[in-house]
């Protein structure tokens, strides 16, 4: 079968492939005609940008707080081990008993809202 140079950059297409590619292009052009796009105004975009930036900042703070809390927790455990302070373990248990029900409750709320 005769082959034609279709694109100057690279490949050679057969006649059938070239015809198919042409049909694809024409078909896709029609999609644009059937679905006209209206572009929102610049204020809408600015609002989206500001809202997303705010969300990202909030998430970053939350991540940082989680990281610092975890680091402090690990440090406390390490110090307790190094200095052999059993009372610290007791405190950790107490904190766990107080914090865990809240954590579970929050998780349950999240699941029920989904």
């Amino acid at each position, binding site marked *: 079968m005769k082959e034609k140079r279709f694109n100057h950059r690279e490949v050679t297409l057969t006649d059938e492939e070239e015809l198919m590619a042409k*049909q*694809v*292009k024409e078909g896709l052009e029609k*999609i644009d005609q*059937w*679905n006209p*796009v209206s572009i929102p105004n*610049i204020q809408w*975009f600015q609002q989206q*940008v500001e809202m997303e930036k705010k969300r990202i900042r909030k998430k970053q703070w939350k991540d940082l707080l989680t990281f610092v809390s975890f680091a402090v927790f690990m440090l406390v455990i390490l110090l307790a081990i190094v200095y052999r302070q059993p009372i610290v373990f007791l405190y950790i248990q107490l904190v766990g008993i107080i914090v865990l029900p809240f954590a579970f409750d929050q998780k349950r709320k999240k699941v029920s809202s989904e």
Partner: protein
Amino acid sequence: MDEKELILKAKKGDSLALSTLLQQNYSFLIKFLMKITLHPQIAEDLTQETMLKCIEKIHLYNGQSKFSSWLITIASNLYIDQQRKKKRENKWKEQEQALRKMKWEAAKMNDEWSDVIDALAQINEEIRMPIVLKHYYGYSYEEIGQMMGIAAGTVKSRVSNGLKNLRKEMAKHEGETI
């Protein structure tokens, strides 16, 4: 203000510059997504998601490719991820609904429906995407490979096999209508 200047300002945190960039590329992005999803509603949702991702990652844009190509990369990855999570049956139902709606729009405009769109909807999105990028937008195999995170050779074979499959689908459709 040209695009390069806007990008530079946007990377420095200028919200207006970023908004302008997004507005300038909005139409291109949504039209691209309509062509690869063949589903106007999904295209609109993905445009929104792509913009949010762009706001978050603008500082990582290195300017090696065009800004519009970078947006295509983000949008394509979001679409592929989304489709992988969906069940095959749901995907098929969604696609059928969207095609019916588009056919209705075409009829409303007294325009003839193009069977190639039906054929395109039948093939997998990971094959449809390189065909659209290559034969509608005219990107090179290397560029498409970079956008989709695959080798240029893989793109080449997907496009070639995809066109063959399209031809088969079209022939099947013609056979059914005769």
